[in-house]
């Protein structure tokens, strides 16, 4: 389950950010993520793993806010941009899979709220 590993990386990024912050930060209250629909990440697994990864950090009681990024692709047959809900979604116009993904692979932490 790579989601746990991803949450461990996330906590490391947050701790790096607050290291030496002035005045010192005592707790991370909220963490905002942006995760693409095509990133291969299971959001439930992220929500499950986050508290485990955060257990011994200042984020241990933090709320996780996840914004999803819709998948989008450029179809080479139709020369149009189409919405792709998963890697199994064909082009909505021609029904084929001859496209290049342009959006939906984000796996980002965008901000956090601290005190």
């Amino acid at each position, binding site marked *: 389950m*790579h989601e746990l590993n991803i949450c461990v990386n996330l906590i490391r*990024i947050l701790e790096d*950010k607050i*290291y030496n912050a*002035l*005045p010192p930060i005592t707790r991370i209250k909220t963490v905002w993520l942006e995760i693409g629909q095509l990133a291969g990440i299971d959001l439930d697994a992220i929500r499950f793993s986050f508290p485990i990864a955060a257990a011994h950090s200042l984020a241990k009681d933090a709320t996780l806010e996840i914004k999803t990024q819709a998948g989008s692709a450029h179809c080479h047959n139709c020369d149009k941009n189409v919405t792709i809900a998963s890697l199994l979604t064909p082009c909505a116009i021609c029904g084929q*899979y001859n496209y290049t993904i342009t959006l939906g692979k984000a796996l980002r932490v*965008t901000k956090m709220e601290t005190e």
Partner: protein
Amino acid sequence: MCGYCGCGHEHKHEHDHAHDSRIMQIEQDILGENQRFADQNRAYFTQHGILTLNLMSSPGSGKTTLLVETIRALKHRCAISVIEGDQQTDLDAQRIAATAVPVVQINTGKACHLNAHRIGHALSDLAPSNNSVLFIENVGNLVCPALFDLGEKAKIVILSVTEGDDKPLKYPHMFAEASLMIINKIDLLPYVSFNVAQCIEYARRINPHIAVLQTSATTQQGLLPWCDWLLKTHAAA
């Protein structure tokens, strides 16, 4: 402290003044650290003319067996080395070592995939020679390894016929990332219901550009086209 990356000991000390605002903007890729190590590995491979291939599959599809046969067939034509990834044991590294090519085993413990940082360390132990071929056998898992760039030239997914022809649809991320799909254990085709054409059609739905080869690592059927693919890719690298 580790010479390769200074891991764990050098944090960037960013003085964000939290009293100005309780919201801290971050905008950072969560796998950005892995990506930086992968880029570092890739630069190393390019600089030394090393063709690196990341072999991925579910457990037991025949990665090690195919590697052993490939090494036997090719080791007199090009220098080969191997990095073996498993959660536990060095059994696979022992099998590779028996072919007398350099090999390093990485045990990932609980992690279900290799990461670029561990590969960087393995490289300093292995010291693959210039213009060689480096195989990385990833941990047996059709999901997680697909997300972690190691700096390889290409990802290869191995699917054995006993696993079923529907796997490209069930694990699309792996097949989307791979440049080549090897259908292995084709000697068992008479005994299982595995539709090769259907499997290839599924894989190309996910990835129109994926190349496909069919092998049996035990009977050596299809080994020649695979070796040709390797030598051609090596020459082009």
